[in-house]
């Protein structure tokens, strides 16, 4: 039977859920929220991430090409990054995947392959932007995103990072409102942001670029939120969380050193097909008896 077989395959990797959720959200955004997306943008993002991953796989002589990680990176870029220029779209997508292979520490990539090119582009390139207001604040949309996202992270066992980010971010927003004497409608409005939920559930919850231990991840979430709060309310710049994540990512190896934990494997998260690796490995063995989390996501 084809269907049960397909479902079994679908269940082998939590990223399949993630891809489905991201695609659904992207289509929803394009069809119902009027995203500023020309037809070529998803093609450029996804085509480039897949191609770049393939080229690095070949160049580094890795055992096999895994389409999932670059596809997720491409879809994440579709959800967040906007540009009118095809070369810029290609550059950003390639930069994200390249960073995954080239900026590493002890077999683990430092930067989230979606976050890195976005922050780089916002800082150094003209003609690229992120629309933090694109999801609006309609409660049901936020709810939908939360549900879909929760499904992904639960399967990927990283819901703790997402929830910690939302919790700390909410604490900062409400704390600020209380200090300023603002009505609670203001932090509530700020919290009802689809962009926040997309960030929490689809970006920072990436198990490959967050600390291995739970206390480490909670600490990491706190640091990201503090930096984000300073950027948003101290420097008055939008997209504080994106910058916060990029600024804190280099601290992950240090957090892992101080608060060590078991490395993450996507296939284990799905408790299926033991020993099967979907990652782009650059080193064949693990550290201290644990498999190393290689490659992206």
């Amino acid at each position: 039977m084809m269907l049960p077989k397909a479902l079994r395959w679908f269940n082998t990797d939590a990223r399949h859920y993630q891809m489905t959720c991201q695609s659904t959200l992207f289509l929803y955004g394009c069809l119902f929220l009027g995203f500023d997306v020309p037809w070529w943008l998803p093609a450029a993002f996804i085509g480039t991430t897949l191609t770049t991953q393939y080229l690095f796989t070949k160049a580094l002589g890795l055992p096999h090409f895994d389409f999932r990680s670059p596809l997720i990176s491409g879809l994440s870029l579709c959800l967040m990054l906007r540009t009118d220029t095809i070369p810029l779209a290609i550059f950003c997508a390639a930069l994200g995947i390249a960073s995954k292979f080239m900026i590493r520490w002890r077999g683990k990539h430092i930067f989230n392959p979606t976050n890195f090119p976005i922050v780089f582009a916002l800082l150094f390139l003209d003609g690229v932007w992120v629309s933090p207001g694109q999801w609006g604040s309609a409660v049901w949309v936020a709810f939908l995103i939360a549900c879909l996202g929760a499904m992904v992270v639960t399967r990927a066992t990283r819901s703790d990072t997402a929830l910690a980010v939302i919790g700390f971010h909410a604490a900062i927003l409400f704390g600020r409102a209380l200090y300023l004497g603002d009505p609670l409608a203001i932090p509530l409005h700020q919290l009802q942001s689809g962009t926040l939920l997309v960030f929490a559930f689809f970006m920072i919850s990436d198990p490959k670029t967050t600390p291995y231990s739970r206390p480490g991840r909670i600490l990491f979430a706190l640091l990201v939120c503090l930096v984000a709060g300073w950027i948003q309310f101290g420097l008055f710049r939008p997209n504080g969380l994106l910058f916060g994540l990029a600024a804190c990512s280099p601290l992950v190896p240090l957090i892992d050193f101080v608060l060590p934990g078991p490395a993450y494997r996507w296939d284990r998260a799905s408790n299926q097909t033991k020993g099967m690796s979907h990652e782009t490995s650059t080193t064949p063995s693990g550290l201290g008896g644990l498999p190393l989390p290689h490659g992206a996501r």
Partner: protein
Amino acid sequence: MKRQLHRVGLAVCLCLTAPGSPAHAFCGFFVGKADTKLYNKASKVVLVRDGDKTIITMANDYQGDLKEFAMVIPVPTFIEREQIHVTSNAIIEHLDEYTAPRLVEYYDEDPCRTIVAMESRALGSMPAAAAAPPVMAKELGVTVEAQYKVEEYDVLILSAEESSGLETWLKQNGYRIPEGATEVLGSYIKQGVRFFVAKVNIEEQEKLGFTFLRPLSVAFESPKFMLPIRLGTVNANGTQELFIFALTRNGRIETTNYRTVRVPSDVELPLFVEKEFSDFYTAMFSRQVEKEDMHAVFLEYAWDMNWCDPCAASPMSPQELEELGVFWGGEPNRNGGDARNAFVTRLHVRYDAAHFPEDLFFQETGDRTNFQGRYVLRHPWTGTADCSEGKDYRARLAARYAQDAKTLQDLTGWDPKEIKDKMALNGQADPKVDPATGQKWWQRLWQKRKS
């Protein structure tokens, strides 16, 4: 001493919105002027922004006694005298007309031959003004950091330690502060803002020979790219209308904390809309606001200032742009453009405190895609067309009329029967309906037998 009470126009100004006068169109000639007042209680703000440099111009259509008018605006930095400028309403009207949603006409070609024509006209918003009050005590924690006479305006730059002190000071000095403003003022004070307070100096105004409020511009440098709307919602009865015209170097602006949505555009409408364009646009806009649950900011125009197509008004001249504060005008842009190196964005917001609890925050994007609110009238070919293409053409007209009627109904919520009746009067009757009886052919089919 008899103290004059100043009605405080908080945050953004109030102004009436009337249609802009039309202008020439690229291909064709101008037909008429949409001379209707579209929105009540509308404010117009021009934001010129590049890097952290901002020039904000506020136009107010305050209609009451100018002696009673004052304006309080939170500003992020101290403002020196040279940072304040009084400009003319005409410039803002021009910008309004240039960016206004427009109605365009086309004429069908002879299906057996060719021909073209086109016209346009535009809807606009309108001008406005500003005003302000004088000085008094400082024990309330209020510091009058500066006091300027700027043409017909008396301007104060205030800082305060707490909102109750500021409120008391303002009241003591004859400003009517609405209930509920204390908390909002307090929030701004804690964020370290100053208050720009302006009122009209009637004597000075008489000397200058003006009888209306002229727009005030303030230039400052701050990373904050925002518009304080919260004070304006404190005492508002119902919703308020705000137009934001942004002039930037690289691309359109959008709100970062609310969704920016394009108004429906490039749709074909029944011909009778020509006479009711203002009604159509206001009805359509209201429906869009409703559809978005009043949580969105609407994009009505985004265009490179060097051109337009069709033009509702000619592009702003480099001198006008400079007057509004486009300080980078002379520099070449990345596309090698001329002195009109500006991209204009027109945003339209209908807001109240419940749906827009937070101030509007913006960002400039790199998006230079042109967008305009454009509505199309397509006149049918009325000459003879006896060729076979002519017969096909007539057959397609019925479907086109039906589609136009449905589009109009969807966009405005107007009664479909009324739409069809008005279309019939304009020669856009459904061919299935007998113009004499208003009945469809099948309604007439067995009527005689029944009678």
